[in-house]
């Protein structure tokens, strides 16, 4: 147990990223796949903030990058949920295995 620093934060964000990747590979339900994507985007945010704090404290570029990532993630989640609800209306299921045809 050492004093936590940049490497500890990078460890946490890398682990969270690959937890999200694992979820994205194993899940077959669109809502849970969306959750995995949220985990991945959040791990990227941790990276940006950690680099900004420990390596470039004289600038705030990492902070702005994570603000924009959060904004785009919110837009992405809203559009994804609209698509999921529309898919549920036409297929009565949001399992990706059962949504094979592109046209409904």
């Amino acid at each position: 147990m050492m004093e936590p620093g940049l490497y500890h934060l990078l460890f946490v964000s890398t682990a969270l990223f690959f937890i999200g990747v694992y979820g994205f590979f194993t899940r077959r339900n669109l809502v849970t796949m969306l959750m995995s994507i949220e985990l991945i985007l959040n791990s990227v945010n941790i990276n940006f903030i950690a680099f900004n704090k420990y390596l470039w404290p004289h600038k705030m570029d990492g902070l702005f990058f994570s603000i924009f990532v959060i904004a785009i993630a919110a837009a992405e989640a809203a559009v994804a949920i609209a698509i999921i609800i529309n898919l549920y209306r036409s297929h009565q299921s949001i399992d990706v295995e059962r949504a094979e045809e592109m046209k409904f």
Partner: protein
Amino acid sequence: MSGSTIIFYMLAALTLVSGLLAVTTRQIFRAAIFLLFSLIGIAGLFFWMQYDFIAAVQIVVYVGGITVLIIFSIFLTQQAGDLLPKQKIGRQVFSALAAFCGFALIMLQLYQHTFNTTTEQPVEPSVANIGNQMLGVGENGFALPFEVVSILLLAALIGCIVIALRSKPATA
């Protein structure tokens, strides 16, 4: 070992354990709640790094917005009490292997790399500084990306309405 260290390890454990449970549990509503705790842990990490504004944004947008949206979509699309279908064991093993190999690769690279730290005077990430730089048009201003993100959010808003609109029955 100081209190700050203990808090860091607790936040990291909360984030990782609830993230792992969120992608492995078979009850979809529990997955959403574990995701909520993971996002709160990340907000705590931002507080720990003393980036208060970004932590507040994280709580407002993710914990208050996206998680609620996900829970609503779960209620709209799932029958209560349904378990997610069990995945094939082969797929689980290969996914875990792929994720672990990627993780090991990144970690090996990371611990062989030394980062160069700067000695310049740090900038306080206060709300006033963030606001000035966000809407600045000068050297380090972010006015153009700000406007681009505004257009993107407007496009997402219109797109959501158009996609989720119930289309009229074709035979009416």
